[in-house]
């Protein structure tokens, strides 16, 4: 297993290099460069733009820029964000935890809701409840994430405050990670505040995928329930819910768990729009701004982080597969 992991990680290196090289050249092919953020500012003169361009090395040949980027990057130096004039490592340290918190919560939500619904549907196959849930899941799955986010804001962060008698528990903040008075709250107050802020964005981000996890769980469960050993268990008189929870679910989880790794990249790209809508200061927000400002070093670093997360996600899928199914051995 260890050697397998090592091999996979080694293989990831050229993969990451390929991705980043592609990003580098595509990014430099786009019109404009980082100095362009000064271009439409009435208070900045032409000389300044030229000076900045040469100071940032933007007037050098592309190959030279690529090489110097590669050397720095390989030595672990992400460099400086041109737009923010801050070390990129500091920016990443600010942003990655927020994104992980949001995606992680969404991930947990996806699997909790998805599996629960899927199991219910499988147990009550072809019932009205099954049909309603199937259709409901499909409905939510078919919504554009950002649109869902805006609708959630419209209902739970706007109308909820306008309507008297709306339960206080169902009023949510529309943006940010914490309230203004966060620093003055006690431990549980802080925890509650954070959860309060997490609910809408995590829901907007995760609920669509939860619908698809529910679908997978349902079919996987149905397949397992038909197997002989389940029938045997039932025949032996094991109570229904125990059969489901202990025997069927564990086996039905096998294909589901592997989804975990596959949803990670999906969540990350979804987080771009969700973070924007909910003013969530994470990586998605950072990469969009970096691209729009042509902040090359920051684009490279954020792309790197995204790509690493995708690689980790895939690896996680394989490892989980082995954990869940003892028949699988990686050598």
């Amino acid at each position, binding site marked *: 297993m260890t050697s397998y992991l090592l091999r996979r990680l080694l293989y990831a290196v*050229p*993969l990451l290099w*390929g*991705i980043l090289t*592609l*990003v580098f050249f*595509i*990014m430099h*092919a*786009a*019109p*404009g460069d980082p100095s362009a953020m000064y271009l439409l500012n009435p208070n900045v003169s032409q000389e300044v733009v030229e000076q900045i361009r040469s100071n940032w090395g933007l007037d050098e040949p592309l190959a030279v820029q690529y090489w110097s980027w590669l050397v720095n990057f390989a030595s672990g130096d992400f460099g400086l964000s041109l737009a923010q004039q801050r070390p990129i490592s500091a920016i990443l340290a600010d942003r990655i935890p927020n994104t992980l918190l949001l995606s992680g919560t969404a991930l947990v939500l996806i699997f909790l809701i998805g599996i629960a619904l899927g199991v219910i549907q499988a147990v009550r196959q072809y019932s009205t409840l099954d049909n309603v849930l*199937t*259709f409901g899941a*499909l*409905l939510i*799955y*078919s*919504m*554009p*994430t*950002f*649109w869902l986010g*805006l*609708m959630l*804001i*419209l209902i739970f962060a*706007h109308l909820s405050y306008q309507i008297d008698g709306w339960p206080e528990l169902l009023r949510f903040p529309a943006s940010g990670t914490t309230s203004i008075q966060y620093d003055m709250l006690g431990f549980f107050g802080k925890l509650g505040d954070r959860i309060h802020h997490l609910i809408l964005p995590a829901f907007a981000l995760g609920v669509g995928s939860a619908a698809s996890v529910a679908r997978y769980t*349902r*079919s996987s469960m*149905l397949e397992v329930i038909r197997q002989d050993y389940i029938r045997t268990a039932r025949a032996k008189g094991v109570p229904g819910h125990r059969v489901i929870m202990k025997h069927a679910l564990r086996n039905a989880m096998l294909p589901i768990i592997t989804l975990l790794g596959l949803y990670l*990249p999906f969540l990350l*790209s979804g987080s*771009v*729009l969700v973070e*924007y809508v909910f003013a969530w200061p994470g990586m998605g927000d950072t*990469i*969009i701004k970096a*691209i*729009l400002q042509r902040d090359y070093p920051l*684009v490279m670093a*954020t*792309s790197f982080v*995204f*790509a690493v997360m*995708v*690689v980790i996600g895939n690896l996680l899928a394989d490892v989980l597969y082995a954990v869940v199914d003892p028949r699988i051995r990686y050598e």
Partner: protein
Amino acid sequence: MSDETGASEYRSGREGWWAALLPGLPYLLRRRWIAGFGILAMAAFLAAVLVLGRERVFATLAGGGGDIDDWVAFATLTLGLGSLWGLSFAALRSGPGGDRSAAWSQWSTAAREFTKNRLAVVGLGALVVLTAVTLLAPYLAPYDPVHIGDVVGTRNLRPSLDHLMGTDKLGRDVFSRVLYGARISLAIGFTAIAIAITLGTAVGAAAGYFGGVVDAILMRIVDVLIAFPRLVLLIVVVSLLGHSVNIVIIVLGLTLWPSTARIVRGEVLSLREREFIQAARALGFGDRRIIARHVIPNVMAPVIVGATLGIGNVILIESGLSFLGLGVPIDVPTWGRILDDGRAALLSTWWVTTFPGLAIVYTVVAINLIGDGLRDALDPRLRM
């Protein structure tokens, strides 16, 4: 249909040819309720368009419109009504038991399997309705979708009988825009997926079939593209090449193929060792022939399923791109675009953002229902 010789043939059924005069009736007589009522409703709808929109239809015929859109709508109207009648006559002809005489190929098994799935049929019906509505937009839309009138008096009107979905910030009728937007959103969805599956199938088949170095190289490219932040590519290409519907289609097509390639490769890897491929090889057929004749037809099932589901996905991505200001040009009303127009004023003029969003949901649900139906029908292993 007044043709005597033709009519005499139809009498072979249980009822007279007159039954087909009302589209769908033959199906109803055979107790095929869904098909019967579906056809009947469709025909009623088209007839209503013909009657209520007669002025515009006449204008098309008189050459007043002259617009290609109008002719497409006219063709849809006539061909639609024609084919509905055609279906009814065909049903008469085939006799009470349905198409018993038809050849039992793999595809017709799949078709039968598909029609057994109620939800999938509903989805197909919904998509047919949507397509018809889309093509008929010039006859259905009460207003010009891009015309900007007096603005101050006409903007931000709530939904009413005059404006079913209200008006937007420049006084344009949202209902008309959503109707016209459907054609562009759907066109983007279908074309982008067509590009993606063509490319994906070709690459996947080549990688799986040849294996070795070819496989390694192609799959590394696929790995890179799958892990690549698609947004970066989209932003860069769109800003490099400019905003246009074609660019958006091409970019989406080019970023979506790797997943198809992966699926196809997996299928081909298992096919490669099967007897009929070995046999074809033993017979000395060339690689291209084997891939085109034997490999690809056998991997089409998962590809078609993936493509169907992908169309919904593309429509969602397009709306996200428009949301970021990177979508189609502003004078092209796609659903994403209309939705974006109402964004800032969502809390007051909620209708501008809500209705195109619902249109997206409707379409993607329909497509997903069809996709699920196809999966069940085409791929016996996945049958739930």
